[in-house]
């Protein structure tokens, strides 16, 4: 079991998608999910850790060993890409045994390792097939087996399941989870899918514009996002500008208790379950229903109030009419997390994990 530490890693590209001063630490055996909008630098970070790209600044340490100046083949990190990238001229067994062959491993040992790896990914019996005879899902599993056979200390995965269809993706996630538990492999998993990140990651790191915005458990990121991008990424929340005075946040949609920021101009992160809708009575401030639809045992309503659009979650039978155009009374139930948006400050991973 080894840990991965990245310190002040920076790589600038002329056209964007670079990384800036990234500080990251993955504990031994941890699966750290890396999310962010496209172009935020997630792949660049992974490639720099793998050694495929040289950083402008910063260090990478695997298991306490500084690997920054080492070429990719000497780093004990293996990377898995979005495409399986199996070698077409080798059989499945040949592919999986590739890393062993490079090291000149004993033939019988290699065969045993290959068999073990294929068993782990549930592809026994396919050793003699060629990649073009396999389905997409099978190919990606062979790629995984190939990576495992290389016995890496850190596994880097760059959106490896995004090319697969939904049920296959769920299967692969299960496989990865099982793998991680069995082998306690440290993994860095990049995805653009928030749900996948929450399902897989022990912790989640959010990146934006080349910088690390926040790292923490999914619940932390959901309850207490440190920046707008994190709040938006986990969805379901409306960001409403307001001002906090003595613990109360005053906004266009009303006042409510505030958490997080203690004063000044803020963005209130109003989650759908904090928006309470009630039948409207004359004299009350008016909010209007824009749209209602049924989703998984609940009703999701889009409501407009004072120019702000909010999402509300209700029981399926709320006891009053909920049609588009209908006026309703709206109340925000706090405490609501409020953030002071400071674009260039990057929270240190150490302070956040102490939360």
């Amino acid at each position, binding site marked *: 079991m080894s840990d991965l530490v990245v310190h002040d890693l920076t790589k600038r590209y002329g056209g964007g998608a670079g990384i800036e001063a990234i500080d990251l630490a993955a504990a031994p055996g941890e699966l750290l999910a890396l999310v962010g909008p496209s172009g935020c630098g997630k792949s660049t970070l992974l490639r720099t850790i*793998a*050694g*495929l790209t040289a950083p402008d600044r910063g260090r990478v340490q695997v298991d306490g060993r500084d690997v920054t100046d080492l*070429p*990719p*083949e000497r*780093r004990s*990190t*293996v*990377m898995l*890409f979005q*495409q399986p*990238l199996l*070698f*077409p*001229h080798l059989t499945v067994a040949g592919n999986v045994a*590739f*890393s062993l*062959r*490079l*090291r000149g491993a004993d033939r019988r040992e290699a065969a045993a390792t290959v068999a073990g790896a294929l068993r782990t990914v549930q592809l026994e019996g396919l050793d003699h097939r*060629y990649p*073009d005879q396999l389905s997409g899902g099978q190919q990606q599993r062979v790629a995984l087996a*190939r*990576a495992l056979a*290389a016995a890496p200390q850190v596994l*880097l995965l760059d959106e490896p399941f995004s090319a697969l269809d939904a049920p296959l993706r769920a299967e692969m996630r299960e496989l990865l989870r099982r793998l991680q538990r069995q082998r306690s492999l440290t993994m860095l998993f990049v995805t653009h899918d928030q749900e996948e990140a929450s399902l897989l990651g022990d912790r989640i790191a959010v990146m934006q514009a080349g910088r690390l915005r926040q790292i923490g458990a999914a619940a932390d990121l959901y309850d207490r996002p440190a920046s707008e991008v994190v709040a938006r990424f986990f969805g379901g929340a409306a960001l409403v500008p307001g001002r906090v005075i003595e613990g109360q946040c005053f906004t266009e949609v009303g006042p409510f208790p505030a958490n997080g920021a203690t004063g000044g101009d803020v963005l209130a992160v109003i989650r759908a379950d904090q928006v309470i809708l009630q039948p409207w009575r004359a004299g009350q401030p008016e909010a209007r229903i824009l749209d209602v639809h049924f989703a998984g045992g609940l009703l999701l309503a889009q409501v407009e109030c004072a120019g702000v659009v909010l999402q509300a979650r209700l029981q399926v039978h709320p006891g009053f009419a909920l049609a588009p155009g209908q006026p309703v009374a709206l109340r925000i139930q706090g405490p609501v997390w409020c953030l002071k948006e400071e674009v260039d400050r990057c929270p240190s991973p150490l302070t956040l994990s102490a939360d």
Partner: protein
Amino acid sequence: MRRLSLLWFGLPLVPLVLWSVAFGWRWPDLLPAAWSFRAWHYLGSPPAGLGPAVAESLFIALAVTLLALLIGVPAGKALGTCTFRGRRAVEFLFYLPIMVPGASAAMGLQPWLIRLGLTDRPAGVVLVHLIPALPYLIRAATAGYAALDPLVEQQARTLGATPAQAWRLVVLPALAPALAAGAGLVFIISLSQYLLTLLIGGGKVVTLPLLLFPFISGGDRAIGAALSLVFTVPGLLLFWLLDAWLRRYRLEVRL
């Protein structure tokens, strides 16, 4: 469709076979009056010079192929993977010899090659054969490299391969079909050259085409036919073998 191809290509060759074993085939007979292996016996005998001509042809063709690979593969890598200024000019230069006959250039080169002592020698012939042949290898190598996914090599690197290992175990096998097709083409082109070999070889370097030519412009028909067969059949075999090998990769190579 296969029958049509066979007809179009196969049928015209049939009289060659007949002629090679004919003894007197005069108008208006549809078949030779008598049969004889005289032409083949002659070819097998030393005065015919078949052995040395074949050896010379093969030696030159092999040399041309090897040189073309050494020179053309890097060029193909540049054209297939990099973007750079002057690219169109380079492509134009590389494409010219395919359509512009190399004979004109060979005629211009002759005085210089004389001065360098390269005429009347296989070395000089190898050099001029490169003119029509090299562009084809460059095209094949370019196509091969263009079809490579750069990520595949990087994947090999993260799995523990040094750059040399990645090249040998991953890149080269991926390029092999395209390079094999290109090399095969270069080999055939060099084998079939007549004028270039004549101009620079000065008649001293005798390859198969040079041996064959006089028989065609008016000579013993039987020997000419036999020689034509000696020329064509191995080439056919080579192509068939190459295609069977390429098929093993389940890839179709288009030049």
